[in-house]
């Protein structure tokens, strides 16, 4: 339900200069990974534009796209993976023009319980094996003989999430996951589950780990050159954790941006402040020139 479109049909307000007071609403849904980033961004923005209401939800990337690509859909969809071809096709069919905003970089992080003192560093292959049905790793001792002979409990975000799709498609190369993996809708549920289960291992965006370092440990991953801990530095584009790094996006409905000045204004604001907010919320920043290009593209929409 996005009745907000009607709220602003009078729309005349925001056409002028940037200093002008804007009003109306901005509706954002999509990635849970990007949610902390976007929530903070929205909050900051509303501090400056008091009459604009930005609401942020976190249904997950894929679920978000289905709400974004609809009549009267959302204004932005956050995504932790790029838009898919079939989603593009859907947009075209509906006549929605979509602008991709790459907002930050995230590192796929594998977290374990604080009491887990064996799996603190694993090789890239070991991690994949843990999650692959074909590898048949039931117990930690199956991964390495000196690990305890206890059952591995795998957790992750469910299929609504870009994070799941990134892991499944880009890292596991679409091979089947173990059947008993516990997939959840909410990231905080995952944090909670892992923090209370000694044999747990889960994957999600770095940001969720960064705000829970007191509850979880991150697995250092050996990509061939020794174990690397994920951090804002290592997940950067040329960092040592780069194999598990992915860009995160927000997709803008350009039609809405043209109709509603507050939507466009918010898009520009997001890009201009992306790196600052990224740092606060556990993402790696983007190169300045990349941001500049996006901002220019947005300014052209006016």
């Amino acid at each position: 339900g996005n009745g907000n479109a009607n709220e602003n049909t009078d729309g005349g307000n925001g056409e002028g200069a940037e200093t002008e007071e804007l009003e109306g609403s901005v509706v954002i849904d999509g990635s849970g990974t990007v949610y902390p980033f976007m929530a903070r961004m929205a909050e900051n923005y509303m501090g400056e534009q008091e009459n604009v209401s930005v609401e942020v939800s976190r249904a997950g990337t894929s679920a978000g796209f289905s709400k974004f690509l609809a009549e009267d859909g959302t204004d932005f969809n956050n995504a932790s993976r790029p838009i898919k071809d079939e989603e593009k096709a859907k947009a075209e069919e509906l006549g929605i023009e979509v602008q991709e905003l790459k907002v930050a970089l995230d590192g796929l992080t594998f977290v374990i319980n604080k009491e887990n003192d064996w799996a603190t560093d694993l090789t890239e292959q070991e991690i994949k094996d843990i999650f692959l049905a074909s590898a048949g790793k039931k117990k930690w001792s199956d991964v390495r003989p000196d690990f305890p002979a206890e059952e591995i409990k795998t957790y992750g975000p469910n299929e609504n999430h870009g994070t799941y799709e990134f892991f499944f498609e880009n890292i596991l190369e679409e091979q089947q996951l173990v059947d008993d993996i516990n997939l959840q809708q909410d990231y905080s549920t995952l944090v909670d589950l892992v923090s209370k289960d000694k044999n747990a291992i889960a994957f999600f965006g770095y940001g969720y780990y960064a705000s829970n370092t007191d509850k979880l440990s991150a697995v250092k991953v050996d990509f061939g050159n020794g174990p690397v801990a994920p951090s804002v530095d290592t997940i950067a584009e040329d960092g040592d954790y780069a194999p598990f790094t992915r860009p995160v996006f927000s997709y803008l409905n350009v039609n809405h941006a043209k109709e509603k000045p507050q939507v466009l204004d918010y898009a520009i604001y997001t890009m201009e402040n992306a790196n600052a907010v990224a740092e606060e919320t556990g993402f790696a920043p983007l190169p300045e020139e990349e941001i500049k290009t996006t901002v220019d593209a947005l300014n052209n929409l006016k």
Partner: protein
Amino acid sequence: MKHVNVEQVQKKMGSRLFANTFAKTLFLLATLFGLVVLVVLIYRVIQDGAAWINFDFLTNKLSTDPERAGIMGAILGTLWLMAVVAPVTMVLGVGTAIYLEEYAKKGRIQSIIQTNISNLAGVPSVVFGLLGLTVFARGMELGNVVLAGGLTMALLVLPVVVVSSQEAIRAVPQFLREASFGMGATKWQTVKNVVLPASLPGILTGTILALSRAIGETAPLVVLGIPALLIPLPDSIFDKFTILPVQIYYWTLDSALVAEYTNLAAATILILLIVLFVMNSVAILIRNKFQKRY
């Protein structure tokens, strides 16, 4: 021949009396169990939340930063919701009660409506949420605004108001109606001038209890799709909104993300419990003050 042996009876007496005392203790403990749970629950909530309640917490807008987060939005949302639920349920509930008690002929239609109301009272609240989502939010294209939420909640608590209003109307003695009819008053005049004023305290009590049920319900509004982060304050029934229980829900869900959210949730629970306690006390006061005047 004697079948009942006095000595044997006496021998058994001891164990029977012990069983009685034992059972009595057990029953008392069972009764106190509820009390204990209540105490623990409230103690826990106070422990987690009391320290977080202050003026800023009550008056600030929502924020992702626990130090700055406040529940003004949820408080206003709750008030706006009541502003829809109260008149709608009053009109529907009291109207239905008047119809059933004063106008309907005892028969099929009346018993169908009556049965329907008691069944409606047993329909899970999520189902009402779906009704609201389908009919008000999507069907009528209201979106997830106060009006849609309020109408959903109004239907949800309607049976409470109907039943308590019926009881209140039934408690108005017949002789008052006769007195009015005897003056040449019409039925509606009698209902309006005699029956309703006399049953008003009962109706109000029921309505307040229904309202307190409405502002404590979470599921229907979650189904309706209240955004996780909604900072602006609602200022009309066409605005998006959140209410105290929904805020508690999201903070509990996100407590793994930011640990302090547990405290915010607890603090909000305290506020909600206080509001409910006040509302119920008012209801009881009204009931006691105006009870049995004839």
